[in-house]
């Protein structure tokens, strides 16, 4: 497997892993039982997606060890997830908006992987797209209800937007890795997904009676190079502590 393509896939796997970890923090704490199950289901889907991607990369000889090793044994600078994924949950509106932004990005990214040369990647993408379609429906419909809800739900959604929108540019900046992957294996450039993403955001925001946001052009791409916000270290210490304390433990 092409090395640049593999790195782009590792980014996606890490996005899923960290997103899943954040969602799993809601277990037992969601505002209603049905949402507790919904969010943890999405977390499980996300862990499954990460496992699928990691396993594929290992079988292609890109990484050694097991999917668990990739998930639990790396240090902070080796994770290539976007900074959006590691942001803390905050309140329900904050979690939902973060999820909606990620789901919209991932949905369009996965949809565009159909044009790639490698069949194994296309088949993984097809499987993940089915789940992501549902995730996007769930988070999108919630944004509509929170935006066009009560004064409180609307103001919480607006606050969530103010804190999260600055993490959007990173998702669409073309760096050396994606440029190489695009040239060598026909990976879609991140920048080409921007207009479809914008349309998804605008449709939901319109229905939510929220002001449709402008896309910013600049932003940091450092998450993709392993340089994260202060939150990732804490998340990883919680996620990895069991395995680090008891290496080789089995259930």
């Amino acid at each position, binding site marked *: 497997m092409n090395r640049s393509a593999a790195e782009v896939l590792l980014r996606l796997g890490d996005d899923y892993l960290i997103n899943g970890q954040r969602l799993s923090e809601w277990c037992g704490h969601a505002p*209603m039982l*049905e949402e507790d*199950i*919904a969010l943890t*289901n999405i977390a499980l889907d996300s862990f499954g997606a990460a496992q699928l991607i990691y396993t594929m990369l290992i079988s292609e000889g890109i990484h050694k060890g097991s999917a668990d090793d990739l998930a639990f044994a790396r240090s902070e600078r080796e994770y290539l997830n976007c900074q959006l994924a590691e942001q803390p949950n905050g309140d329900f509106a904050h979690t939902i908006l973060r999820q909606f932004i990620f789901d919209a990005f991932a949905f369009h990214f996965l949809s565009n992987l159909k044009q790639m040369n490698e069949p194994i990647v296309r088949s993984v993408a097809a499987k993940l797209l089915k789940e992501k379609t549902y995730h996007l429906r769930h988070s999108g*419909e919630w944004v509509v*209800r929170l935006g066009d809800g009560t004064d409180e739900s609307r103001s919480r959604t607006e606050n969530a937007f103010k804190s999260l929108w600055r993490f959007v540019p990173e998702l669409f900046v073309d760096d050396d890795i994606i440029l190489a992957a695009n040239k060598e294996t026909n990976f879609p450039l991140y920048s080409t997904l921007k207009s479809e993403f914008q349309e998804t955001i605008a449709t939901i925001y319109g229905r939510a009676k929220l002001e449709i946001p402008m896309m910013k052009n600049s932003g940091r791409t450092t998450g993709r190079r392993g340089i994260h916000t202060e939150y990732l270290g804490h998340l990883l210490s919680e996620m990895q502590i069991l395995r680090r304390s008891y290496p080789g433990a089995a259930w």
Partner: protein
Amino acid sequence: MTAPTKNESTVLWEVFLQERSGSPHTHAGSIRAADAEMALQNARDVYARRGLPESVWVVRTTDITTSSATDRESFFEPVKDKTFRHTRDYVVPRDIERLER
């Protein structure tokens, strides 16, 4: 099944799952949701986690009319003696291998 009070923002819904195309939808349980779209999603998340249903129905509990305990005597008891309503006297033809009820 009592009607929700005016202050409740979530409604109670009954969930029905269809296992195979052509099978009847069977009652799986109930969930709370504010509206039909969220009810459909919640039903899928809570009751369709395992197995592969073909379809999910959600119905507001208040839209269901049920018979009461006092109805039982006049609705159902008289039917007990009416065995002529069953197909017990038909002879199954020899060539029929399997008869599904």
